[in-house]
């Protein structure tokens, strides 16, 4: 049943199958119809489902989200595409002041089953506003689910689950992994709010999500050379947070490293580490560490390799938790 495909193709298949399965599902966004999206995620869908279900919208992000809200009032399940992470801010008010609150505001009468797709993260040498990681703004907002995907199977199953969910779900797609390939079985379903342990290990827990899941797995392989056995968790859901999966792992390993591309200040790593300290303080053998983007605006493309957490920075943090020689102090 499974086929090898890219993450982009898996997302395309998920959207196609969702449109096929439920006539209330529709897609709306900039350039998603005739062009098939700037990343071709919606390629061929307008031809197949028509212009009223795959809507090329005016260039107005607040309009894309706000119009989707109105459609949801009428019983539709809009999947809105924000073309790039850095373009979401004009739509921020509609997301945090309307989408996130209407169910709460109306005591559950009005549901907002919107899916908001946002390609996010860096690593593609892009110009400004095309490499951002805005997840903390949304994870901070009550009333939204925020999920990330990490591989083609996860992308397919999570997108299907997001569209079927009666809550608004922001799906962050790691754009630099769009062309990575993997096996996809379209009959596999996903739970939206669970983290997953991708690799078990004894020495430290390494938590990542989105584009850094691949990096974290590569770091774990590299660590083997030093005899370090890393457990790798893909957080997947950024809100709600699956703190139980993280805590269970930290209770076994006693050490925690969290990695993401977004700046560290008031970020997902702040929250994951706080949760672990609250949930299993007594099991921690060392202070938790994080490897994040620096607290600067996303730098020019020529500098992004220095900004983005890579294998070496992750292993350096692992060394710190293990009291091994590292960049900040000799063992």
């Amino acid at each position, binding site marked *: 049943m499974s086929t090898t495909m890219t993450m982009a193709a898996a997302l395309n298949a998920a959207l196609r199958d969702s449109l096929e399965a439920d006539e209330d599902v529709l897609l709306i966004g900039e350039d998603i119809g005739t062009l098939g999206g700037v990343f071709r995620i919606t390629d061929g869908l307008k031809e197949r489902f028509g212009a009223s279900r795959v809507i090329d919208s*005016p260039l107005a992000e607040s309009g894309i989200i706000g*119009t989707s809200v109105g459609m949801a009032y009428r019983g539709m399940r809009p999947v809105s595409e924000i073309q790039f992470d850095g373009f979401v801010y004009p739509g921020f008010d509609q997301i945090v*002041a309307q989408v996130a609150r209407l169910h709460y505001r109306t005591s559950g009468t009005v549901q907002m089953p919107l899916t908001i797709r946002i390609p996010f993260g860096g690593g593609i040498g892009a110009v400004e506003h095309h490499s951002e990681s805005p997840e903390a703004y949304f994870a901070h907002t009550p009333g939204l689910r925020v999920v990330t995907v990490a591989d083609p199977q996860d992308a397919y199953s999570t997108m299907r689950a997001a569209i079927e969910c009666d809550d608004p779900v922001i799906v962050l797609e790691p754009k630099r992994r769009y062309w990575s390939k993997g096996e996809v079985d379209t009959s596999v379903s996903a739970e939206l709010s669970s983290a997953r342990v991708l690799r078990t290990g004894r020495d430290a827990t390494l938590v990542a999500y989105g584009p850094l899941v691949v990096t974290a797995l590569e770091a774990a392989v590299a660590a083997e050379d030093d005899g370090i056995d890393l457990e790798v968790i893909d957080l997947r859901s950024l809100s709600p947070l699956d703190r139980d999966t993280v805590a269970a792992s930290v209770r076994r390993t006693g050490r925690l490293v969290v990695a993401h591309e977004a700046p560290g200040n008031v970020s997902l790593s702040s929250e994951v580490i706080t949760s672990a300290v609250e949930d299993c303080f007594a099991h921690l053998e060392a202070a938790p560490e994080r490897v994040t983007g620096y607290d600067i605006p996303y730098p020019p493309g020529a500098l992004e390799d220095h900004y983005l957490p890579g294998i070496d920075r992750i292993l350096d943090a692992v060394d710190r938790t293990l009291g091994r020689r590292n960049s900040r102090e000799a063992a």
Partner: protein
Amino acid sequence: MLTTPSAPDHDLVAGLDKPLHVLREDGTRRPDPILDPLLRDVDLELLRGLYLDMAVVRAIDDEAVALQRQGELGLWPPLRGQEAAQIGLGRSLQETDFLFTSYRENALAWCRGVSPGEMLSVWRGTTLSGWDPFAHHMATPQVIIGAQTHHAVGYAMATQAQGKDDIAVTCFGDGALSQGDTNEAMVFAASFHAPVLFFCQNNHYAISEPVDVQANVPIALRPTGFGIPSLRVDGNDVLAVRAASLLAAQHIRAGKGPMFIEAVTYRLGPHTTSDDPTRYRDEKELERWRRRCPLGRLERHLEQLGASLEELRADAERRSQEATTAMQEAVAALPSPAPETMFDNVLATEHPGLLRQREQFRAFTASLAPEQTEGSAA
């Protein structure tokens, strides 16, 4: 391929030089070639109904202000002066046409059968949303200026896709004209020929800012730049507003795309009960608009048609009494929400973190309860 549409027709907008009106200040009927065809059904009964609506709504509005002054409500946004604009619209729509309004449209809520308790609960702070939007075909008041315009357009696009003939109507004030959302919504509506009516009550002030800060041309001119036909109508002439709304709804229902109405009116009261309008507008201007009271104009018209004003006023008084008594009773009966309910409905599905916080809140609240020890009772 030609990708640029031709310039919009110059006839896109009517009433620019002087807002369309069919009732003169003295109550006499004035012929109007645009609106007259929509007024053929007007008879004494209909006029009486419009008058009673406006009178009752004014009483409701005054009573809400009084309830706020008595401390029963936290805040109230008075609509005094805008009765004709709202009743004229409200009494022209089909029951299933869906309204997306701001917070000052309580006369429209009245038209939609919203109960006093439903209307007041938000302002008493017992809920964030007073009524079921689907039961009344009216979304609950939007506080973010202009945000609801998008919702109306999206709703309209969905009804269009479903092949239904009900339309969406969005109400907003002159201040909303400056919001990106309102302008974006007009782009979406025009591009997709959405069956939506943009209804702007130009009440001359956005809190303290006069309308010329938002637009230094008539507001009705703005939508024409989007290709949306527009009517500028005297918002204190209930017949004119009703006719203009019927005309717009006909146009929209016929599949001709969105329309825009600017109802030129005036907010006689403060922005809200927290506002002090004496700081920003002068008494002479206010007096001029008091004399243009929409109820007075219709009264004079009814009198000229031979209706008994005495009877009409007595009827209005009786209905107003009923409504305001119901408000007093409803306010007193509004339940205080149980503290734990603040955790309800954040998501439609389960959220483990919230369950945990609710448990912690419950434990903390329980810990505050005085311990029941023997001999502690007085």
